[in-house]
């Protein structure tokens, strides 16, 4: 396989092509809508065209699994073209162990998300699908950007389609939720833009023009006083996106109001852009601040609070989508713990949670969407005993819920186990507290499961529910396969991320000491 990919120069063109395909797809879908109108047949064409685009995108992206050198922690499949020369920005792309699985997760989830909304999205079908495609370009762009300005542009490109997706195709309180989502993230990322511009100018000084090249900025020797503000700017942007406690309150509203596919993408991919930002930018660029004991401890404390707080609040949610949203706060808390504990095991664990949460929470939202389409309610208490009438749905929901609470044999266990066993080496007490999340997760998830699918089937309106159809089964089975595969044999995935995780840990540890030493000298 690797030889074949080398033969077609796969690495040379794959990244720009991956960004281009959804963009072209978006234009085509939009144009088709403009020409063919909003009829039923035209809508179906829009769905099929979008699905075909995403399937093509996924098939093409799979090559990354084989084409990348597992031993290398450097940028790979690099593509570099001039963009806005006067500003020194370039259209520079690349992947490494930190991003490759995120790219694959995105291309894997997108077709499933489209299938998930196949029958539930009935209005403005063309616009919806065009925005979905555009959103994909934005998300993939963030993951593969090797130029910080490009990174920022993609970051915002992704924001706008999501704003419309929630605001137009969302639930009852969609306007409030979408505005909250937009302002929250927008306000938080503005400071990041300022920071990026500052970094670009600083890095460009020797050249006489700005440069936003990742490696050039990484090599910068920043004035210690500036690093605090810069780190703060990035921290705010990423922490809101993650979302870390206490910046998380946009998430429950956005999750609940978004249409199924929106929730899947929000939880499955968008949140990971925040943690990815920490891995890619905040830690490597400003190790002196990130590893500064007070800062590091404070962030880890917020992460652990997120785990416990998210789980406790999830326990009492009457709305299943809100429950899943708060469980996301808890899971992402584990990711942040793993990242800032900074051992190879904990960072690998964080990456595994990022992938695993994408699968299991993505599947949870798909399942909720499936049952919502039949009952039009998200209230847990409106169900009860439905395992009797929808056994397939109940079986799959159970497996996914178990993966979400980290049962061994599923991805959830491998991921959380790695985070905790790695973090315990540097932050034993914090990890100890976070481990109680294991208990709480079982409590909120199994309680909800019981009230939904077990107990007595006592609501007459649920007695005639339809079980999964072939489309629904077909979109869930691949996720189930992923959940079990990553639980039983995660080694191939770990191998692909190992070199980059190791490099991150050693570089940040080493540079943190250097930067902190210069801070001491500069400060006193």
């Amino acid at each position, binding site marked *: 396989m690797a030889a074949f990919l080398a033969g077609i120069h796969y690495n040379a063109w794959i990244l720009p092509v991956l960004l281009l395909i959804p963009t072209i797809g978006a234009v085509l879908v939009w144009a088709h809508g403009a020409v063919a109108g909003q009829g039923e047949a035209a809508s179906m064409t829009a769905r099929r065209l979008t699905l075909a685009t995403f399937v093509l995108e996924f098939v093409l992206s799979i090559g990354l699994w084989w084409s990348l050198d597992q031993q290398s922690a450097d940028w790979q499949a690099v593509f570099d073209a001039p963009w806005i020369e006067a*500003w020194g920005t370039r259209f520079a792309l690349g992947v490494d162990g930190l991003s490759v699985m995120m790219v694959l997760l995105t291309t894997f989830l997108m077709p499933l998300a489209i299938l998930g909304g196949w029958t539930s999205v009935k209005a403005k079908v063309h616009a919806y699908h065009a925005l979905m495609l555009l959103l994909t370009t934005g998300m993939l762009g963030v993951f593969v950007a090797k130029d910080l300005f490009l990174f920022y542009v993609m970051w915002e490109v992704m924001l706008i389609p999501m704003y419309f997706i929630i605001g137009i195709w969302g639930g009852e309180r969609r306007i409030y939720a979408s505005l909250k989502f937009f302002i929250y993230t927008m306000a938080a990322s503005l400071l990041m833009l300022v920071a990026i511009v500052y970094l670009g100018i600083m890095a460009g000084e020797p050249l006489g023009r700005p440069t936003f090249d990742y490696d050039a900025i990484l090599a910068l020797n920043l004035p210690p006083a500036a690093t605090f503000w810069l780190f703060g700017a990035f921290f705010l942007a990423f922490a809101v996106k993650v979302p870390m406690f206490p910046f998380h309150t946009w998430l429950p509203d956005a999750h609940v109001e978004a249409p199924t596919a929106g929730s899947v993408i929000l939880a499955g991919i968008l949140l990971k852009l925040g943690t990815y930002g920490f891995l890619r930018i905040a830690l490597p660029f400003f190790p002196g601040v990130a590893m500064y004991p007070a800062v590091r401890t404070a962030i880890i404390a917020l992460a652990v609070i997120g785990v416990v707080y998210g789980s406790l609040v999830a326990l009492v949610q009457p709305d299943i989508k809100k429950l899943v949203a708060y469980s996301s706060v808890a899971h992402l808390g584990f990711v942040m713990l793993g990242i800032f504990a900074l051992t190879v095991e904990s960072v690998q664990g964080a990456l595994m949670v990022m992938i695993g949460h994408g699968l299991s929470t993505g599947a949870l939202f798909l399942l909720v969407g499936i049952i919502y389409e039949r009952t039009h309610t998200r209230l847990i208490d409106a169900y009860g005993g439905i395992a009797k009438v929808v056994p397939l749905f109940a079986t799959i929901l159970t497996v996914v819920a178990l993966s979400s609470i980290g049962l061994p044999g599923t991805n959830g266990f491998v991921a959380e186990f790695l985070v905790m066993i790695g973090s315990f080496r540097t932050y034993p007490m914090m990890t100890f507290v976070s481990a109680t999340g294991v208990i709480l997760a079982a409590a909120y998830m199994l309680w909800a499961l019981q009230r939904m699918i077990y107990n007595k089937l006592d609501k007459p309106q649920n007695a005639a529910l339809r079980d999964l159809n072939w489309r629904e089964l077909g979109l869930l089975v691949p996720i189930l396969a992923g959940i079990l595969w990553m639980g039983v044999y995660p080694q191939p995935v770990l191998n692909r991320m190992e070199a980059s995780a190791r490099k991150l840990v050693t570089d940040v540890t080493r540079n943190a000491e250097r930067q902190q030493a210069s801070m001491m000298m500069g400060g006193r």
Partner: protein
Amino acid sequence: MLLQEAAGAAHPLSGTLAEWIWLVPALPFLGFVVNGLLSLVPATHLGPADPSAAGHEHGQAGHEDRGAHDDHHHVTRHRNAGIVSLVGPAVLGLAFALTAAIFIGMLGAHAEAPFVRTLFPWIVTGDLTLNAALQVDQLSIVMTMVVTGVGFLIHVFSVGYMQDDPGYPRYFAYLNLFVFFMLVLVLGASYPVMFVGWEGVGLCSYLLIGFWFTDKANADAGKKAFVMNRIGDFGFLVAMFLLFANLGTLDFAAVSGRAAELGEGGAVITAIGLFFFLGCAGKSAQIPLYTWLPDAMAGPTPVSALIHAATMVTAGVYLVARSAAIFSLTPVASLTVALVGAITALFAATIGLKQWDIKKVLAYSTVSQLGYMFIGVGVGAYSAGVFHLVTHAFFKALLFLGSGSVIFAMHRAFHHTGSHADAQDMRNMGGLRRFMPWTFGLMWIATLAIAGIPPLSGFFSKDEILASVFARTSHSTLAEASWAGIPGSALLMLIYVLGLAAALLTAVYMTRMMLYTFHGPNRSGDAERSHLAEAPWIMTIPLAVLGVLSATGGLINLPAFLGAPAQKLHHWLEPVTGAASMHITHGEEAHLALGTEMALIALAVAIAVAGMAYAYARLKPAALVPKDQSPAAHGIERVLEHKYYVDEIYDRTIVRPVVALSRRVLWRGMDTGLIDGLFVNGSAYFMRSLGWMGARLQSGQVGTYAWVLVIGVLAVLGAFSLS
């Protein structure tokens, strides 16, 4: 690692049948896949999708409501029942045969080190190396034989017991999956692989307790079991984190070899021991995490026999024995294990005195006997603990299956007459010996065994534990240590006394159960009586096999004073636990003078006989009346009947406060109140009022501000690039 590989290359078992050990768990897994797929095929038409027909009110909440009773008029046998009846037990039979063959191969091999079969790398990253690897040694093979052997008998019994249940294939799928995870638990070569089985059996337990999930009480019981087990699993996890942080490995062989590096008696090794024991308390239902096990009786009775008596709940005992190298170096943790075991043994036995549900009696009896096993492994008599584990698997499986036969018969009788009386309440039974002589006789064998009457199996294993405690009250690291200021020797004496007291109560409540169930007049009702009969042979034959084992199981580890083939199990386990055991007793076998030992045995037997005699003299089955005519209990009896109100206490002091805190303080107060209300929306109002103050210069929309800011920054940037 290198050492292990070198040992593996020259291992006497390499190249033998032991290489095929992976097939032992693989067979039940195959059964799970086959039966699981068959269960997805709809059974028969499950009746109209009318919720009122879906669940049938039956008996008191929390009681076994057999699925076949969804409809009183016809039984719904699953269309795939035939193939399921074959596959389900057959995979267990084959697994047992293979295990026995491997065991026979081990008899002549004299393997001093475990044989590790590595299948594939599981989680290898950073400094962590975890392989999917199975370990064959003297301890794991004993456990595997119990799991597959007793498991096979219970599977066969289930064919009869569950035959008319519409969820028949699903039942066998879960049961096969359970055995798979149980085998992973006992065969895993490292703590994390064991943990896979550990949580996996918990999952199957959850699924099987809630097998008849349309009854809320059953679903509640399943959830309670899972969550309480998770509290224990939290301890297991933390112990693993501590091990890895201090030793850098989680493989059994490496940990056993290097446990001394943790520092004998130090804080770290004590913490590891105590956190592992928290795991044991969850899985093996010890104080304070025992309350899920009695509720777990909501599952089908063969499940109670297999999971909640013979195998899964003994996993904690196995964990302590497996970690003998660690526990032997921390007297404080070891004494805690023994003390908690002793207190649990007595405490649960007192509750068993006043239960009316036949399965609840056996459930508290199980909690109590598990406490006994922990006394054994806690005082470093690892082989004694495992010995009791094995004999208990025989006689308790027999008792549960026997009670299953009784319930089956009662249910059938009530079914015929359409009665809604409780088929599990002993007040509705009585005099069953006339109707089910086989079950009656076999259950009495098991009762005498658990009560400790010689020469039945339970006598030997219980005596071995009590003698071990007594022997260690002097000349042992435990006796010389101090536990919370109490001298170890005094604590051991207390444990011994608690053990004796529990033995007395065991004899009492077991005799009571037998008297009320099988003796005296029959109270089931005149119409029902004519329908009472022995269960079919497919259920009685497993009982008979277990009866033989319960009677003769003591042979595997006869006491030393009986001469030649004595202490076979003890010597067999020596390569695994011998060194740790000897460490506690200062390098020599714990030994009692023959006179002392005889005196102790006489005392124990006298106590058992006294307990039975007391129960026989005091309890009058003839005076009992059926459940619905019985008066309410008073005073201490009432407290016992309500299990000391521990469930209620947990609910008021833990469950409700946590839910209230989460709802009122965290969610409504913090989340929607403080963060969202004050900061987020508050700042939006602030912005809006700013906009109002700025008259019509701005729109007041925060979104507009955001865009203005973007454009502004871009303009600055553009200006810069031009200059």
